[in-house]
């Protein structure tokens, strides 16, 4: 009997047992959570006091948030090696939203949350066992839904979107999704990816930041610290993970060799080529763009636009791209 009594005393019991904290839920645009944990993973790891679970902060805020006390970013690009805890970090923040808005204390040291109207969470197709339809198709259908439905008050976590297709396809889609979430939806979002190229957007788009899962290298081994820090991962350590998983030593050595080739040559070359072809890459800080003679990139891009073929949304996107190009032109 008395469901609410039991419900609330159960939540109080939980709060005491798991050292939860009362969140502040308001109409603002913040998502400031410090020392957050993932209840399920934490319990799976065993005792909290053993310190097995590494707590992490997350600081997002909408530009219209009346008092900005923390970060300036509303979208964070999360990079880091596999197994370093990207997915857990993403999900624990989504779960904090749910717990807070259901009226529960949350697993964190402190939490301030501007109320969320819609919550979205997607994982790239590689983790998805949906049968029948192409998993990549499912991934794209679901991603489309997010880009179409998320409002400025929504909270989105995307985990390795674009993984289900070829590298450059995937990268391009991921890139466009970040831009869309940032420019059109304008919502708070966490975007985990192994496309390190995406972190370039953190430098160019206002309100986009980058964090990475810290890793320590020690005697050719890697140690996952499970700690989120500002910045971007410099590589994905996939081969280390493969080694951990027991891939035969010969295969690991060969993979290392191939990686060396790719990094030294072809992929870098392709990326450079892409940077020239795609205005998207014009913003990357590294290879300084060559100042073009004749019509500027912006003018060229504008010339290529045919207004009759554009939907209003396409038009808006085109406008964003042009604006980005213009900024770049003036820098260069």
């Amino acid at each position: 009997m008395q469901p609410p009594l039991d419900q609330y005393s159960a939540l109080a019991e939980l709060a005491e047992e798991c050292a939860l904290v009362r969140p502040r839920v308001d109409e603002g645009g913040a998502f400031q959570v410090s020392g957050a944990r993932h209840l399920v993973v934490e319990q799976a790891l065993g005792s909290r006091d053993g310190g097995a679970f590494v707590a992490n902060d997350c600081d997002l805020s909408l530009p219209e948030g009346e008092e900005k006390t923390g970060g300036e970013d509303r979208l964070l690009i999360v990079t880091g090696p596999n197994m370093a805890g990207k997915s857990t970090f993403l999900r624990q923040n989504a779960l904090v939203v749910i717990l807070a808005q259901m009226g529960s204390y949350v697993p964190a040291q402190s939490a301030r949350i501007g109320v969320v109207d819609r919550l979205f969470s997607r994982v790239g197709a590689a983790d998805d066992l949906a049968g029948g339809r192409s998993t990549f198709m499912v991934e794209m259908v679901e991603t489309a839904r997010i880009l179409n439905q998320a409002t400025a008050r929504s909270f989105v976590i995307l985990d390795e979107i674009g993984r289900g297709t070829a590298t450059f396809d995937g990268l391009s889609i991921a890139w466009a999704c970040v831009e869309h979430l940032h420019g059109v939806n304008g919502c708070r979002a966490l975007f985990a990816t192994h496309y390190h190229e995406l972190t370039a957007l953190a430098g160019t788009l206002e309100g986009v930041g980058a964090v990475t899962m810290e890793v320590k290298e020690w005697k050719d081994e890697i140690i996952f610290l499970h700690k989120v820090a500002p910045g971007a991962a410099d590589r994905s350590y996939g081969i280390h993970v493969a080694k951990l998983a027991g891939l035969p030593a010969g295969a690991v050595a060969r993979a290392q060799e191939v990686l060396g080739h790719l990094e030294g040559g072809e992929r870098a070359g392709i990326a450079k080529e892409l940077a020239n072809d795609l205005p998207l890459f014009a913003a990357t800080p590294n290879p300084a763009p060559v100042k073009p003679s004749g019509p500027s990139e912006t003018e060229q891009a504008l010339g290529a636009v045919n207004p009759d073929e554009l939907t209003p949304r396409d038009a808006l996107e085109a406008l964003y791209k042009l604006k980005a190009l213009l900024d770049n032109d003036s820098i260069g």
Partner: protein
Amino acid sequence: MAKRTTRSTGAEAARDRAAGQKPRPAADAPTPVMAQYLEIKAANPDCLLFYRMGDFYELFFADAEVASRTLGIALTKRGRHLGEDIPMCGVPVRAADEYLQKLIRAEHRVAVCEQMEDPAEAKKRGHKAVVRREVVRLVTPGTITEEALLDSRANNFLTALFRAPSSTTAPGDNYALASLDISTGEFLLSEVSGTDMAGELSRLGPGEIVAGDELAADPEIRALADQIGAALTPVPRAYFDSLGGERALRDKLGVAEISAFGDFTRPELATAGALLKYVELTQIGKQPLLRPPKRMGPSDVLMIDAATRANLELVSNSHGERRGSLLHALDRSVTGAGARALAGALASPLTDTAAIGNRLDTVQYLLEKNAVRAELRTTLKGCPDLARALARLTLGRGGPRDLGAIRDGLGGAGQARKILSGDTLPVLLRGVKKDLGAPPDALPRELGAALSDEIPAQLRDGGFVRTGYSKDLDDARALRDKSRRVIAGLQNDYVQATGVKALKIRHNNVLGYFIEVPAAHGGRLMGAGEDNGFIHRQTMASAMRFTTLELGQTESKIAAASDRAQGLEQEIFDDLASRVSDAQGEIGDAAAAGSV
């Protein structure tokens, strides 16, 4: 799957089918019982028919084949029909819940057909007369109330789904949903856009979805139902009628104006109407418990679509199990009802910051007041599932233990109210306290006086009424017990009279009470002839059995007194159950105390 698409509801289809049966040649004419069976089966073609025969529910023909496969019970034969053996299997009535559960899990529907009169009554109409039987209930995944069939920690919603015609104010597809947990009376209404419909359905997680024929045939809806593990039942489109729905709501809720509960849209009313109609169809006229409808619109709840719910493993993990879900990790509730409320809150986080703040205030209060919380939890732990007991009693499907649950639940409510005596209660707890005090004092007192400490599971087991509650019952019981002592005395007398120390008075279902002596001594009783009154009944290999006039008379006295005691207990049960039913609103308030 084919089972679903070919399923048709309504008596019309049944009559068509019955009419379509060709007259059989006389040689093949079914027995009267089989003829009755065929008629009832024809009226319920989409269900497995549980046909009551004495202590068993029997299944015949294809039903028997399906059930024996699903339940792993033996398939036998009984008689012949149209020149073929009739396959048959059966389940004992006492264990029927367990078998029902398996069939419902396997997404079957079951029509329960009971004997509506004593076989002796039927015999009066002639020796060929068949006991009158009627289907009293359709058991479907969304309409179960039995403890054994339900998960105590999860709601079991029946959800009617309606695609509203698009209008100028609401362009595109809109869906209205009306959901009832028949086992608790919780009643929810909502209307969402097409894109949010899947998320809304997975928020509710119904056990059964009822939709118009056309919508139910939509591959997307069918895939969705599969995904959330709900049975999908098509009903005629005409069920969705907003005027009829409004009328039904007014009737069932006992109000003159439905607007007392909020402004419902036409699609919502139409959907509620279809829901109530389907409930009526499956409950064969019995009135389920219906709490005032709660309306939740897209702006009231944090919208979380189906994929996100699955991805975040909110209430079940990726394998559909509770373990590893957020709910499993956070659930510290001590009652089934608390667990259901917690699961509901987790599935439907709010968006109103003031309402969220109120909830957090409540948690904070209970966190800070350690002693209050500990006392509350101890009290709640001892409380039975008030809501489900109430729902069963209201539906006329309760047992004596449900009355016990009401007594203990209301007792617990009173205690909880006392514990919440602080003067600084947060606003939600003030509401809880008010609702806890709602049920009339008289009822718990009456139940306390009437119910014995050890309550049997079944009414017919007898003994649920406390001695001293009813003089008539006490007299009947005394007579029965006295006569039992008389029998014990008789045994002594007969031992004395015959000098056979091994003489015993025994009882079995065939002979009733009888006197048994070892075969070697049988002659002594036989030889004594008629004068000492021993009448020979049976000769066994090692024993002989007798009766006497006196023994026979005492036995009928016992039987009569037992019958009378049973009848009186039934009367008392019905009276108490109807008193509970009359107070359903207040008891329901206590059960749902302050659920916001």
